[in-house]
């Protein structure tokens, strides 16, 4: 029956060019009412660009968009929204200092006698969130809530508009399993009500859980549109990366080796910070990858920030190669050979208007000090080397880093730290928001770094990755380190059990 229905939205022959990059070439895309349509592709495949074309952020160079039989040319996200196309972006786009209710209704506040009707505003906000099964104080500033709740607020905001098409760009990347289940329940209900939902995610399982139809893009071109039932997972991955995959690549590289003996490269003992982590200890040897597993809010990022000196520890001792160090700032940590790829690359990582080259050499240069400037030639060499090594998709080293796709920005930050040649590298969600192909690349890289003698702390909310990479895993729950697993105990099931049991 679905296949007989007319598409509510049709995009035909969409082309968009940026200087030096053909972001989209003659891409067709359509959506049906009452369907969840997954848009899949690697980093730089053009997913975000297609969404931005649909929401009026990027003007089209060629092509047409038809909504319910009417040709439309959305000139801005606001226009798109008024036409019935609502979007929740990958990075939450709300005002953290406004209240939850204000965030949901900003720009369309209920008015009474020429003033904002606060009572109605707060009541409506509460009701909108209740639809998502969330019950919080909507008069509190948004920033007081976790990223997951903020994501839900963003969705509530988009849902509340009488939307015909709802676009969700990576909505689950910061949600834990329960929250994902909750979100999916809501999305299924909305689908049943006839909403067309465009769903972009890097989680293959979630695609198959929720979607009815999949469109695959690769390098800005359309690979094809498929019904979920007709596209097995392996076939999807092949279409995304354009070659056949051996699912066994990147398998645990003889985890046993992993420098089991040897002294600790980095050691934390009884380290704690109020409101962040209760006292914990960690030991990481050179050549070892220690995993950090735990649900959202368990203290993974907090731990990483403590070890890097981004937040100061209230108590405890940290040692590098056996000698005590006081890591009071990132600068000191870097001087001791520690590197840190932060989770939130937009605010903590990339410096958008600087070039790829400048972003890559920045930490190395900061560590050398301003007056021992790397020569222009040396900078180019370093940039070129890492652009090639990590296969960063950029029009060149002088491209502004902010213009790159999310995954490529992640690689630039990784390059920044590799350039400092750290002995201990902390990776906080290095594969977040990155496609399958790049994920495998990064995990392979992590393993080869360990083989060369680097100590690594690997944080990921995807247990599968932690298990694949790490020979030892520290498990966190509610800001407590509850266990350390190694050897055969490192598998998804055991980790989950540990978290569940404590």
């Amino acid at each position, binding site marked *: 029956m679905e296949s007989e229905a007319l598409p509510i939205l049709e995009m035909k022959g969409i082309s968009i060019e940026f200087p030096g990059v053909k972001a989209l070439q003659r891409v067709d895309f359509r959506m049906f009412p009452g369907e969840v349509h997954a848009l899949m592709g690697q980093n730089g495949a053009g997913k975000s660009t297609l969404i931005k074309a649909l929401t009026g952020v990027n003007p089209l160079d060629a092509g047409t968009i038809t909504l319910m039989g009417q040709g439309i040319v959305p000139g801005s996200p606001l226009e798109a929204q008024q036409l019935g196309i609502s979007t929740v972006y990958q990075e939450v786009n709300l005002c953290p200092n406004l209240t939850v209710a204000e965030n949901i209704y900003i720009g369309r506040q209920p008015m009474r006698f020429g003033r904002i009707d606060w009572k109605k505003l707060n009541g409506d906000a509460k009701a909108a969130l209740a639809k998502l099964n969330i019950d919080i104080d909507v008069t509190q500033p948004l920033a007081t809530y976790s990223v997951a709740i903020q994501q839900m607020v963003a969705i509530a905001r988009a849902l509340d508009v009488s939307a015909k098409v709802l676009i969700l760009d990576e909505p689950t990347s910061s949600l834990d399993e329960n929250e994902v289940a909750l979100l999916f329940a809501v999305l299924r209900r909305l689908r049943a009500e006839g909403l067309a939902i465009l769903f972009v995610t890097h989680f293959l399982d979630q695609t198959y859980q929720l979607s009815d139809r999949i469109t695959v893009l690769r390098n800005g071109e359309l690979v094809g549109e498929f019904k979920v039932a007709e596209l097995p997972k392996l076939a999807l991955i092949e279409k995304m990366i354009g070659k056949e995959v051996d699912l066994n690549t990147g398998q645990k590289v003889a985890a046993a080796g992993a420098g089991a003996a040897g002294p600790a490269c980095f050691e934390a003992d009884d380290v704690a910070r109020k409101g962040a982590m209760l006292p914990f200890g960690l030991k990481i040897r050179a050549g070892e990858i220690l995993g950090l597993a735990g649900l959202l809010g368990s203290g993974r990022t907090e731990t990483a920030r403590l070890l890097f000196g981004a937040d100061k520890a209230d108590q405890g001792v940290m040692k590098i190669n056996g000698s005590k160090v006081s890591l009071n700032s990132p600068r000191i940590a870097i001087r001791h050979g520690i590197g840190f790829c932060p989770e939130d690359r937009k605010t903590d990582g990339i*410096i958008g208007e600087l070039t790829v080259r400048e972003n890559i050499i920045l930490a190395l240069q900061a560590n050398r000090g301003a007056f021992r400037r790397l020569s222009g030639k040396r900078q180019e060499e370093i940039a070129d080397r890492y652009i090639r090594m990590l296969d960063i998709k950029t029009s060149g080293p002088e491209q502004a880093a902010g213009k790159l796709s999310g995954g490529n920005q992640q690689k630039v930050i990784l390059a920044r730290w590799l350039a400092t040649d750290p002995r201990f590298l902390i990776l906080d969600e290095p594969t977040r928001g990155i496609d399958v192909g790049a994920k495998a690349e990064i995990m392979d890289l992590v393993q080869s770094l360990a083989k060369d003698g680097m100590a690594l702390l690997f944080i990921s909310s995807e247990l599968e990755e932690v298990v694949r990479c790490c020979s030892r895993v520290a498990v966190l729950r509610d800001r407590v380190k509850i266990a350390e697993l190694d050897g055969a105990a490192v598998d998804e099931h055991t980790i989950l059990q540990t978290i569940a049991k404590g």
Partner: protein
Amino acid sequence: MLKSETTLFRKLTGAKLFWPLLALALLLLFNLVFTKGFFHVEIRGGHLYGSLVDVLNRAAPLMLISIGLTLVIATSGIDISVGAVVAISGALVATLIGGTLVLKDGVQTYVTLVPMSVAIVAAILVSGLAGLWNGLLVSRVGMQPIVATLILIVAGRGVAQLITSGQIITIYYKPYFFVGNGFLLGIPFSLYIVLAVLLFTLLVTRRTALGLFIESIGINPRASRMTGINAKNLLLLVYTFCAMCAGIAGLIVCSNVKSADGNNAGLFFELDAILAVVLGGTPMTGGKFYLVGSIVGALIIQTLTTTIYSIGVPPEITLVVKAVVVFLVMMFQSETFRKAVFGRSGKQVA
């Protein structure tokens, strides 16, 4: 052929310096047509004389302040106290040199309270101290730059008055006049000062990594901290340097008018300087900065001022004329505006 011309045109219009230079060229062209003798330069007594020379000489203090302010604005900060620092510097140098006319047998003799070089160095150092204060408030106390430097705007003029005991000090010591009015090899001496400071700043920001770090903290301070850049000390340095530039400008201003007026020296300089920096292409939000652009910006403002006076615009409306021209230049510098006016034709060709 056509294509290469188009790309050259795009490259040109895309270059940051293009629009301020075009604005300056148009202003000069206007003067060529409407102001008699604007381009007339003659050698009088071994010195170059003429409107152009005058514009350059008068723009010197503004150019100096713009250089320092460019770096502050690049860190996404602002220093509105530069005018007050001009007053402090002038007051100090005048007081140290001394404001008494000494006659010996009916002939003026040149005496100073302290040697002139000491007075000059002291004025620059004290200006630097004022900047250090700004920098401490911004980087250590965490005050917003506009608020922090607002304090010095108010206090600075008070300090200047305090130094001069509330008097306007007139300088009679002739050697000091050379700073603002002297000529070296036929060219105003103040221009050598500007050139020296500009070259020094270019060297220090571009031959070291300081420029990169300044841009980095201007664009994303949080991420910059994560890369190990010492933003606090960098801010301290930048605000101190900016005030020292203002201090040097103060020396020139003081020498120009041969007196120190704590109330009026450098009044509203901060506004012209901010304008010069922005005209030069450095965004107020911080990030990539353009020192030469700021110099061009300062020249635009001074040329405009001189033009307005020389074509006889009634004094009551000079500010309005100035505002209109500045507004137009700003608009054309904005890519968004150009696109809205000229459409996206350039893109389709490429």
